[in-house]
């Protein structure tokens, strides 16, 4: 027999559905992602820490879950909201159902929800806090829990998900089928130190693929320790939540600027923006999807990009003489990328490593390799 599940929002809206995944109650900011494929990557993206994810595509779970498509060692979403959760997958790569995958790590799922109505609500009213229960809580309890959930702004979530220990990563991208081509090739031999604010594995794989030996370090690592590793480049990772509370990392990044080539993605981009003297702000409901058009001003080409962020860098807050704006989001004109006019650093708001999503922007890893080479000379 199916178990009931309830999702309640801070404004008192309640959705009833059928429970899957773990028997649990979780709270978080409710955000939606419009990707049709790639739910396993979404589940395991540490940037979703503190967020209950609504997937807009109705059938989720169709191809199950496997060992190689995870972006971290476990799922990071707080809960999942879908229209139709599928527990009988069909795909040659599947090793378990999406249900088993989430249940194993205590993630609750509510299925049967009019996800579109929920998305329309979030779109018009902005991201909202919510509570999701598959453990028999009442709607009233959940509304109360939603209201007690701390808002995302001002929350330091990166320190919660960063690695406790420094570790090395050398595993490159590998084809998943006899017909998959890996587009990135080794371009040299680099030593890269990657700050982990909630790093996705595919970033590490992409770095390894261009020839980098990556040392992943905790978010709190001082600049001196990083420089002591004599890196060819420093990478600033993606991660959950608001960049502003991360004053410690921003200070360390400021010390690294100019001394070593830096490449940042997503939260890494925001931190770099802050380190360069800019400001960040919270978007109404964020960008979460794999279909956003971004114009690269340097090439005048549009890339279809992967997005997952609730905050953005205000381009007007940056010093135009020092900072060149390199990428813009064509949907809402928000800043998507920048580079320093004289110092070796660049960063993008979106996810060139994809996973899930299109591979249009993988060239940025090659750009990083080129930057490291250039700096070396």
């Amino acid at each position, binding site marked *: 027999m199916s178990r009931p599940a309830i999702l309640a929002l801070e404004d008192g809206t309640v959705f009833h559905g059928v429970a899957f995944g773990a028997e649990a109650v979780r709270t978080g900011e409710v955000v*939606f992602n*419009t*990707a*049709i*494929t*790639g739910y*396993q*990557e979404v589940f395991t993206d540490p940037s979703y820490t503190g967020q209950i994810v609504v997937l*807009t*595509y*109705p*059938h989720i779970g*169709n*191809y199950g879950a*496997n060992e*190689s*498509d995870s972006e971290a060692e476990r799922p990071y979403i707080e809960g999942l909201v879908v*229209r*139709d959760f*599928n527990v*009988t*997958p*069909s*795909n*040659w*790569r599947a090793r378990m159902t999406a249900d088993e995958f989430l249940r194993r790590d205590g993630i609750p799922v509510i299925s049967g929800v*009019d*996800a*579109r*109505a929920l*998305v*329309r609500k979030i*779109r018009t009213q902005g991201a909202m806090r919510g509570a999701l229960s598959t453990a028999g809580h009442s709607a009233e309890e959940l509304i109360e829990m939603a209201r007690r959930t701390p808002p995302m702004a001002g929350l330091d979530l990166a320190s919660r998900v960063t690695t406790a220990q420094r570790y090395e990563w050398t595993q490159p991208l590998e084809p*998943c*089928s*006899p*017909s*998959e*081509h890996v*587009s990135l090739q080794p371009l040299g031999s680099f030593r890269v130190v990657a700050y982990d604010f909630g790093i996705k594995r595919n970033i590490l794989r992409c770095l390894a693929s261009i020839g980098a030996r990556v040392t992943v370090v905790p978010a709190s690592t001082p600049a001196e320790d990083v420089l002591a590793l004599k890196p060819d480049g420093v990478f600033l990772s993606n991660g959950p939540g608001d960049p502003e509370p991360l004053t410690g990392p921003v200070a360390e990044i400021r010390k690294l600027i100019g001394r070593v080539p830096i490449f940042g993605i997503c939260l890494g981009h925001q931190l770099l923006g802050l380190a360069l003297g800019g400001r960040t702000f919270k978007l109404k409901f964020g960008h979460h*999807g*794999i*279909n*956003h*058009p971004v*114009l690269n001003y340097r090439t*005048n*080409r*549009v890339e*279809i990009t992967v997005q997952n962020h609730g905050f953005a860098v205000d381009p007007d807050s940056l010093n135009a003489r020092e900072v060149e704006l390199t990428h813009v989001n*064509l*949907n*809402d004109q928000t800043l998507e990328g920048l580079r320093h006019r004289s110092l070796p650093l660049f960063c993008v708001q979106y996810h060139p490593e*994809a*996973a*899930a*999503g*299109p*591979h249009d922007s993988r060239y940025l890893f090659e750009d990083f390799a080129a930057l490291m080479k250039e700096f070396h000379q």
Partner: protein
Amino acid sequence: MPRRNDIHRILIIGSGPIVIGQACEFDYSGTQACKALRADGYEVILMNSNPATIMTDPDLADRTYIEPLTVEYAEEVIRRERPDALLSTVGGQTGLNLSVELAERGILDRYGVELIGAKLEAIKKAEDRLLFKDAMRKIGLEVPQSRLLTSVEEGLEFAAKIGYPLILRPSFTLGGTGGGIAYNREDLIEILQRGLDLSPVHEVLAEESVLGWKEFELEVMRDLAGNAIIVCSIENFDPMGVHTGDSITVAPAQTLTDREYQMMRDGALAVLREIGVDTGGSNVQFAINPENGRMVVVEMNPRVSRSSALASKATGFPIAKIAAKLAVGYRLDEIRNDITRVTPACFEPTIDYVVVKIPRWQFEKFPGAEPVLTTQMKSVGEVMAIGRTFRQALNKGLRALETGKASSPAVLREDLITQKLITPNPDRLSYIRFAFERGYTVDDVYEMTKIDPWFLRQIDEGVRYEKQLEGRELATITAAEMKQAKRDGLSDARLARLWNTTAEAVRARRKELGVAAVFNRVDTCAAEFESFTPYLYSSYEDECEADPDNRRKVMILGSGPNRIGQGIEFDYCCVHAAFALRDFGVESIMVNCNPETVSTDYDTSDRLYFEPLTLEEVLNIYDREKPDGVIIQFGGQTPLNLALPLKRAGVPILGTDPESIDLAEDRKLFGRVLDELGIPAPPYGTATSVEEAVAVARRLGFPVLVRPSYVLGGRAMVIAYEEDTVRRYMQEATLYAPDRPVLIDRFLEDAVEVDVDAISDGEDVLIGGIMEHIEEAGIHSGDSSCVLPPQSLSDGVLSVIQDYTVRLARALRVRGLMNVQYAIKDGQVFVLEVNPRASRTVPYVSKATGVRLPKVAVGIMLGQKLKDLAHLTGGRASGVLPVKQVCVKSPVFPFSKFPGVDPALGPEMRSTGEVMGVGENFGEAFGKAQLSAGVPLPSEGMIFFSVNDRHKSEAVQLARRLAALGFQLAATRGTAAAFRAAGLAVKTVFKVNEGRPNAVDLIKDGRLKLVVYTTTGAHSFSDERAIRRSAVTWRVPCITTIAGARAAVDAIESRLRDPLRVWNLQQMHA
């Protein structure tokens, strides 16, 4: 890289008549292209032979040529118009092939015309199998092992190397014509021979079988700057081995991980780059081995395709419109997304629903054809359904098909399950459900079908769920249960069967429980941005986004899936209704489920509901919108079937009262009307049993015409010359529809048939056209060529026709369009049939006269009089509209797709489309129409006759005219004797059973350039069939009526006498 200012005048080539494999989707793409380019200030010259299209409406282009799509006529258009550019990618394979030919023959260079959309080199790389294979290898993509064959010997050698089965595809043919799967040597020889012949370049590609692999398609767009996007992914429900046009397809892809999907996306983009498609839309097909993910590229189309139309409708992203804009230099990011208004077209649409497309077949029209699906497309139409889940969409799609079967298990046979699952066929889905009902497991069914278990499980779960519901008491159903059932896509009618009650009762209970349909929007973005276009589908979710307004508004019911007898002509009428409503200041609401059409473009009407045309769905929309009226007379039989039930439900029907429409269909009531008016009709009777029918036939005297009481495209109609035929017919008819009486008419042999389209406001009657049929009565009117103005009717006959038409319109209180069919026998006019609604010929008459009949009809339905609308009719409120040139409409037949089927014409309609020829005289117009219809008449060589005794004297006259033009004559013994007796030189040819070389041998040798073989009347003998069949196979024009032969001789004379000339509609109607 904005709009190109160095080009001003653009030629667009359409796709010609509707044929299997090339249908309304190219009216959609051509129409979008015309609109987009003109909106940008370009001058558009359009060339298309199909008068039933919206694109050939004089309003859509600056100059519109309804002319044959051949190099000669295209060159003449180019010579006259001197366009700067030719857009090659929106007219299907026909438009593309003609563009290639014009380029290769140097005609484009000679007149300085630039090929835009796809360059010649790109087209060749994509279309030429060898070049394509090399290109794929170069970019590291696999294709199935293959070899291009030019002879049967090469085929046998290749088969010896890689084994069977082998997939065979002739190069450059429509919808995979002539293709097939060879499981053994015998198959190989047969398919290969046919394929080599059908391919214009005499090449067939033999390919390693990837049967049973999963099949996918990606719709890609690319601009000159190299920006590229995937508009939509499509997964085929049927695995490889079934033509994608014959597959049930689902958007988006359901069973791919993101890794696999991105691998496919990378592959598709690489294909476009390598092939060199730098502006516009393309479609790339892939196959994936379900065991290990190995992916091969199956093919790519460097143009807008059937799948593009589907993808456009499935996502709300108008591919053809954007392709046209890219072709003139725009970048994707310079074009706005109409739906969101704030975001650019350079993005990848994402959807939050499931789309299912289901083909519709009509094997019943082609006795002798095996109802088996292969790599050669055989479906005549399709429906698309949108649902929140796969099952909801699938169930909606099944009822949108209107096959009437509604999966009733009575017609399914347990002993056929294995066969019906293993060999793809039109009933496979029904058999899958049936197999699950009988306890087969998903694994069992997968084993036999190779359909992905994900889909099979969905169906299995649906079957189980219905079983669970079965036998419940309606009163005990809770709101939650009702909602769940509706969310699963079950119709009220289906639930009524499960609960042993009526659909009305289910509906009432449903409303009582507060379970009503809501409407969601198709918005390209899964609600991420606000949508400004009311493009809607129904669901049973929590929130309704229909957001209706309070303007004066009218709902138009469309015509559903294309089928023989109900095709694009009715879409033309519905689209015009929408345009007319806009002009009259009334909001238009379109309801239709055919993804190929212009009517289902979101900017054709003010509001679009993509829904099945069932009573339930239409009432749901009605309840939400509360329109001031509903137009049901433009969509063919589909909305007519709903007319009375809608009226009973309190829906205001505009125009002619449904009771009047019904009265005209009811032979007894209508007979009374005719009696009162003193208008003669052939003697008739009705019967519900075999014996009764025989008695009626005896009373009337043979031959008799026997048909069901409700007619659609002459479905199941026969001319019986003796009792046996009547008996056989009745046995089938009573099985098929036991409650409906059968009509039996005295058949008027050798009568001239006439079609009349008229408009009436209840008082005045304006006749749009009196169309004289070329073929005699007895040939279905949709299968007969006809001419405007009439050529052989006396003034007396014409005035009788006018008089009858006016009186019939008044008697039936027609408000809007009406069609009457007459037969003229020995100078006397008989009424055969009256249909107080838009007919198949409305677009043809509109094009020939320059008066848009549907628009006038809409004016009347909105309460105006013909006199008020005189500005739309050239000042006329009565009489007959004039036609300046001679315009001939000719049908186009799909016989080459159905081996074994006799192409002789008869009372059963079998044409899929039509063309129009324009000329100064009848011969010229008929010759052009025949050329457009794919029956090019010869200007020299040997012409073969075999006619029955009734036709001998006329045949002699025709033979004499041909001999005078230098043709040689050949004939079977009897006909030859008649020719000789008249002093004509003739070669006697054996019939097939008489010896060799016989007529078939001469056809195969290419010795005969034209075959005239009339039927003996009763039914065709195997000999006749063999000769006519081989004429079809070897592409020798074959005429099966003496009247058709007469017209052909007129045309041949004109061709040898008159110059090659073209007319555009704007000039004709000026």
